[in-house]
């Protein structure tokens, strides 16, 4: 029996390839994700081990509020006395004061150089560090810098040339005195851009305080362990200092990145899961068709005395074989893809991250085989059960079994859809992930089960639009011929399209809502803000610039704000200092529920309604606030703002607190022009004020909104790319169904050719069938996806999704793409059908 099954599998190589391919792609996605994230994880561990290889203990000021932005200034600075204090601790060989901060070099085109996540670092040059001078000499004068080889490469700088750098201060220009690299001929440690200044320059530009240090790097005497030394220094300095060993720091930073990578891996695996889910439809369909075509063969085996168990076994073994082969191929392909992506990441994405060797983690192997085999067997189970129910007499009958009624399928589909929809609603309402995911899954299965019923009227309608000639009519009729087969093929396509559509609807609604809020609530004409690239915020400016903007002719009012994390009654909130609160009140159209909106005196704070409620505070109440650099103090609530979508989760602080922020600079300013003033002209006169800071742009409101919402387009693009695989697998399904149908209808095709159908007409017939199936799947996906999107937007109404936006253009393009996909999917089966030898086809059994 086993031998017969294996022979039967091998005899159907085409089917093996087609149904196996869906699994291969899914498994490839899974194992590729594991290989990629594992490689990157180990590479980052190596990176931080290298970074801290010359550090036994590092001393810094303990942050009072956790920092989000790695490029922001430190929580506080140390003095030369601190360095001396550390030096005197027993067991310290050397203690060197570091000056490390953010320095963003400007490239030749006048734009600030960016990386893909690695920091842009400024330091004070230290002899005897890891840096190896390659060319020139270290910075000796205050107008000289040494730059890393990677920065020289990225910006095209050479020794003797000028380089402009943004730091806490606006643009300053230096001469490149030298270019340095790192051991092992590396241009950077991990794709970072480093500028080394003289110590006094670095202290002024990076820390804003002469004589200050951001940290102290300590090397231990021989025989003194890192941990022992750490404890001694901690004891000597006291609790205001943060003392960590080099190993500890390397581990902490690697772990932080590792967490991000783990999340990234989950996201990739989620998309792999979707692809595999679609794969199940394809395999289920393939096996169903195979079992239907083998009815006589299986019945003959039954007649010869094979048991039902053996029938099920024969199909399941076939599935296991396919699953096993597909897993091996998928794992191999996944390792290749993972390695490729890791290389792409290290060269393009991460600058010059030194890749650890590609290895295959056990998780990749285990998950590949588990997923590949389980998915295939799961998908083959239903067809296997059907095979077991084939009566021995079927061998004697013509294979034409009557259509089974769809009642049971429809009832089950309806029930599942309802349950799924209910769970979705529950999940959206509660904002919890698992009910949403399982609801989605159940809804998709439910709709897939309902599809055969829907397919009859819808397919004939779509067909009528497409079928204007005889081959078209035949194609349309063929696609309506087996509703289950058409339905499951279309349903596979539905899943991908529905998810893309749902996300599109949600994101379009977000854009619509943001745009509407901006249009109706923000009365600013110009917005001055830093452009953030790859999440690297830059472009802050001194408050004096806001004053200069105010003095510009045509400007009626303007205000800027500073932001930093603060702790209020122990909770982390968004601290905001506004240069002119009444101006904000006017420009944002704010109202208060209690208190008067006015500039805050020392010791006063303002809250928005939601934050006040969350903190259980009201006007006149007191709260303790901890800023990054300042001391913890008690503040009185001066006003509470009525509910607004413009500020959320915010604590407004008096202007004097700005100096206690990690970075005492304004990051955004809003400008209202005089009535009748030409906004473009005002903008032209404001722009020169920021000419020394290419990170800052002056935009009118609509382009500012477009810039903000453009990020959503990137999100949509990423999701579309990741879902493309699910759609690709669905396309394989369409090809598969058509190819198997062509084999099944060999005689019919032969007859058509015999009575004079041209090859082109045969191809058109197959193409129409394919397009009908694809468009049907896309329509289902659009309807289901739009419903999902609308439900999500409804659920998120309180989170600022005030308006529903349906991306009609996008939805239309998905439909067109689906039609195109149908044409492409038909190519191979159509060629196969057209090439049939007429004589052989009409005598085909």
């Amino acid at each position, binding site marked *: 029996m086993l031998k017969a099954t294996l022979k039967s599998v091998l005899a159907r190589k085409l089917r093996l390839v087609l149904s196996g391919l869906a699994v291969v792609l899914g498994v490839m996605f899974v194992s590729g994700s594991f290989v990629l994230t594992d490689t990157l994880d180990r590479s980052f561990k190596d990176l931080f081990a290298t970074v801290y290889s010359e550090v036994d203990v590092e001393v810094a000021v303990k942050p009072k509020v956790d920092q989000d932005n790695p490029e922001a200034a430190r929580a506080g600075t140390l003095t030369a006395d601190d360095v001396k204090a550390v030096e005197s601790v027993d067991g310290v060989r050397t203690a060197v004061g570091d000056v490390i901060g953010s320095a963003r070099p400007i490239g030749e085109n006048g734009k600030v150089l960016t990386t893909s996540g690695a920091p842009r670092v400024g330091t004070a040059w230290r002899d005897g560090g890891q840096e190896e001078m390659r060319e020139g000499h270290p910075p000796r004068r205050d107008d000289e810098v040494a730059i890393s080889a990677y920065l020289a490469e990225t910006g095209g700088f050479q020794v003797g040339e000028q380089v402009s750098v943004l730091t806490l201060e606006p643009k300053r220009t230096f001469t490149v005195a030298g270019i340095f690299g790192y051991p092992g001929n590396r241009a950077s440690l991990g794709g970072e851009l480093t500028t080394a200044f003289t110590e006094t320059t670095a202290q002024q530009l990076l820390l804003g305080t002469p004589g200050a240090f951001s940290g102290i790097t300590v090397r231990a005497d021989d025989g003194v362990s890192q941990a022992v030394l750490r404890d001694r220094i901690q004891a000597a300095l006291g609790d205001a200092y943060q003392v960590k060993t080099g190993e500890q720091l390397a581990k902490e930073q690697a772990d932080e990145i590792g967490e991000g990578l783990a999340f990234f891996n989950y996201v990739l695996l989620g998309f792999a899961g979707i692809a595999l889910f679609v794969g199940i439809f394809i395999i289920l369909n393939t096996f169903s068709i195979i079992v239907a075509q083998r009815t006589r063969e299986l019945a003959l085996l039954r007649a010869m005395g094979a048991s039902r168990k053996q029938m099920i076994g024969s199909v399941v073994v076939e599935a296991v074989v396919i699953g096993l082969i597909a897993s091996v191929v998928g794992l191999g392909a996944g390792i290749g893809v993972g390695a490729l992506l890791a290389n792409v990441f290290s060269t393009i994405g991460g600058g010059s991250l030194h890749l650890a060797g590609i290895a295959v983690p056990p998780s990749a192997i285990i998950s590949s085989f588990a997923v590949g085999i389980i998915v295939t067997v799961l998908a083959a189970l239903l067809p296997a059960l059907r095979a077991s129910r084939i009566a021995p007499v079927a061998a004697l009958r013509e294979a034409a079994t009557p259509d089974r009624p769809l009642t049971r399928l429809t009832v089950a589909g309806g029930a599942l859809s309802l349950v799924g929809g209910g769970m979705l609603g529950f999940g959206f309402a509660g904002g919890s992930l698992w009910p949403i995911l399982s609801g989605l899954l159940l809804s998709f299965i439910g709709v897939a089960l309902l599809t055969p019923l829907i397919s009859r009227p819808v397919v004939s309608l779509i067909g009528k639009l497409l079928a204007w000639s005889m081959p078209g009519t*035949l194609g349309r009729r063929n696609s309506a*011929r087996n509703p289950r087969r058409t339905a499951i093929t279309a349903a596979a396509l539905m899943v991908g399209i529905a998810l893309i559509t749902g996300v599109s609807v949600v994101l379009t609604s977000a854009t619509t809502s943001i745009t509407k809020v901006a249009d109706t609530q923000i009365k600013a004409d110009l917005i001055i803000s830093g452009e953030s690239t790859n999440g690297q915020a830059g472009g802050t400016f001194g408050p004096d610039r806001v004053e200069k903007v105010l003095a510009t002719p045509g400007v009626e009012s303007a205000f800027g704000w500073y932001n930093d994390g603060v702790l209020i009654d122990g909770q982390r909130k968004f601290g905001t200092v506004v240069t002119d609160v009444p101006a904000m009140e006017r420009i944002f159209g704010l109202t208060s529920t209690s208190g008067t909106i006015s500039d805050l005196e020392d010791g006063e704070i303002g809250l928005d309604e939601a934050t006040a409620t969350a903190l259980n505070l009201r006007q006149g109440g007191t709260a303790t606030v901890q800023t990054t650099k300042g001391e913890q103090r008690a503040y009185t609530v001066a006003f509470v703002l009525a509910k607004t979508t413009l500020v959320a989760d915010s604590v407004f602080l008096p202007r004097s607190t700005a100096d206690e922020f990690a970075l005492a600079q304004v990051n955004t300013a809003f400008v209202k022009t005089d009535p009748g003033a030409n906004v473009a002209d005002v903008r032209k006169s404001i722009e020169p004020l920021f000419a020394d800071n290419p990170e800052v742009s002056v935009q009118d409101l609509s382009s500012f909104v477009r810039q903000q919402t453009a990020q959503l387009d990137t999100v949509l693009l990423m999701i579309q790319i990741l879902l493309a695989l699910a759609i690709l697998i669905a396309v394989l399904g369409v090809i598969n169904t058509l190819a198997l149908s062509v084999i099944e209808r060999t005689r019919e095709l032969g007859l058509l*050719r015999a*009575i*004079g159908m041209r090859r082109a007409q045969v191809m058109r017939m197959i193409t129409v069938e394919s397009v009908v199936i694809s468009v049907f799947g896309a329509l289902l996906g659009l309807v289901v996806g739009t419903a999902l999107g609308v439900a999500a937007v409804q659920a998120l109404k309180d989170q600022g999704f005030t308006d529903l936006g349906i991306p009609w253009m996008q939805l239309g393009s998905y439909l067109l793409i689906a039609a195109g996909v149908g044409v492409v999917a038909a190519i191979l089966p159509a060629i196969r059908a057209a090439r049939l030898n007429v004589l052989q086809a*009409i005598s085909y059994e």
Partner: protein
Amino acid sequence: MTGNVESAARAVDVWKSYGTGEAAVTALAGVSVEFDRGRFTAIMGPSGSGKSTLMHCLAGLDTIDSGDVWIGATKVNGLRDKGLTELRRSQVGFIFQQFNLLPTLTAEENITLPLAIGGQKVDRAWFDAVIDTVGLRDRLTHRPTQLSGGQQQRVACARALVARPEVVFADEPTGNLDSRSGAEVLGFLRRSAHEFGQTVVMVTHDPNAASYADRVIFLADGRIVRELHDPTAAAVLDTMKVLDGDDRLVVA
């Protein structure tokens, strides 16, 4: 050589073999035959005699090694796929033993299929005449699965006739039918030759079926060995016995 307007189909010294070297089998060994317009001809012969091959070559379904094949004024050998398709669509009608109809189409749609494929209009008067002759008027909206075997074959006959082809080729058209349904189909083929002037060429191994024809051609080992005109079933059977004796073949 030009096409003879008097004959609907013609084979001139046609040779055809399958396989190469040791395994080569000669299916047709210099067959020359003409089929007169408006006559019903049966081709008979034992299995492997080349009767099906001859029909396939005449209809342009199979290629020949040498010789010439004409349908009306069209030389079949040398035509490429496009020309052959055109030929099959407009000058040849087919009736196969089984699977003659497309299951997704109604009887009427099946009948008019060759015209629909060619984008031609249906000649209603001719269509009605054909339908009434095969007696399918009340079955036109039925699907093939709702028709009996005999009815299906009559639909196939109507389809073969509806485009008014030069020749209708029928390959064992009654092979799957009971004798009564078979008699109906054969009677119709005979009438279409005599009443409509339709040339019909039928391959069969059934002497009774052959007796409906105006002329019977006997093939053996790829050659035409005997010919009968206006045969009776008994005459056909006698000829077969004689031929069997010559070839020492046993026919059950």
